[in-house]
């Protein structure tokens, strides 16, 4: 196991949401592989339920929410990248 893990990178991302652009389609919440997002109970300016970050530490910066969003309202940036060293 030590052989496989050594040298791999652990990537953490940070999700940004522009909530007034959201139209509440739910693509990002459903397709997030790490279950980072959830639908808020609040409304935005246009009356839609926008997504909020539920587990900010789980984001792996895969960018799937960014590429799926039809209204360019959500994106992620690289926050931290570190290499696994031998345990």
């Amino acid at each position, binding site marked *: 196991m030590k052989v496989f893990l050594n040298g791999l990178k652990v990537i953490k991302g940070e999700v940004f*949401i*522009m909530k*007034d652009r*959201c139209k509440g*389609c739910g*693509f990002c919440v459903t397709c997030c592989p790490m279950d980072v997002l959830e639908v808020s109970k609040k409304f935005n300016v246009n009356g839609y339920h926008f997504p909020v970050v539920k587990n900010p530490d789980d984001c792996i910066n895969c960018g799937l929410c*960014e*590429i799926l*969003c*039809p209204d360019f309202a959500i994106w992620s940036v690289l926050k931290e990248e570190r290499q696994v060293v031998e345990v």
Partner: protein
Amino acid sequence: MVEHTDELHPSEYFLQAGSIPSIWCPGCGIGTVVNTFIQAVEKSKIDFEKICVVSGIGCTGKVAYHVKFNSFQAVYRNPIKRASELKLKNPNLKVVVFLNDVDFMTSGAEGFIGVGKRGVALCVIYVNNFIYRIFIEHKALSRTPFIGTTVENNIESPFNIPHLAKSCGAQYVARWTPLHARRLMYSMADALQKPSFSLIEVISPCLMYYASNGIIGRSLDRVSFFYDNSIIKHGEPTENLDIRPPNKIIVGKFVDNIRE
């Protein structure tokens, strides 16, 4: 919780200022197609000024308005012909055509066949939502047998578009659904580099017309219906690509060759 409204989206530079949020319904696949297209342009590192977007009528026609590339919206059933004139006049341009049922496979079908046979280097992105129904004879061409605009099921089977594109001599033919976003992006980045006619078919539901029948639940369910009922088979012979509802929709990259 992170909510930064001051920061800008990484693709903001490619969007027409003030046009977002777009006019499309919540859950429509066209917005995702535009997003993947912009990311494909960023990925393939094509010069921003060398791209021209042409679109037709209807919801898909609004793509030309939302993106910041050089773009225009052609009149009814003419976008492929106008785009081919643009490409022949300016061979250095990368011309991308966004089409729907009307402009591609029903009223504008003769344009697609002629231009495709001639091998004009267009990148055609066809958003297929199975709903076109202005004339009765067009129902047989592009609509689906299971849902859509007829109350009873259609007696005709839908048209096999990748097969027609291959027989017209297209160099790159692929078919995806909007939720295959990453694969769709790589397909678009490939098709933008091709020196000949290339076609990408995106199967996306029309939320409004499916809602009137009430067959498939909420908007997200309608998009993921196509995702769940699709199976990826790269290099499948194009004769087998008919969409017949009990069988799964075959998606993937079917043709990728050099035109002789």
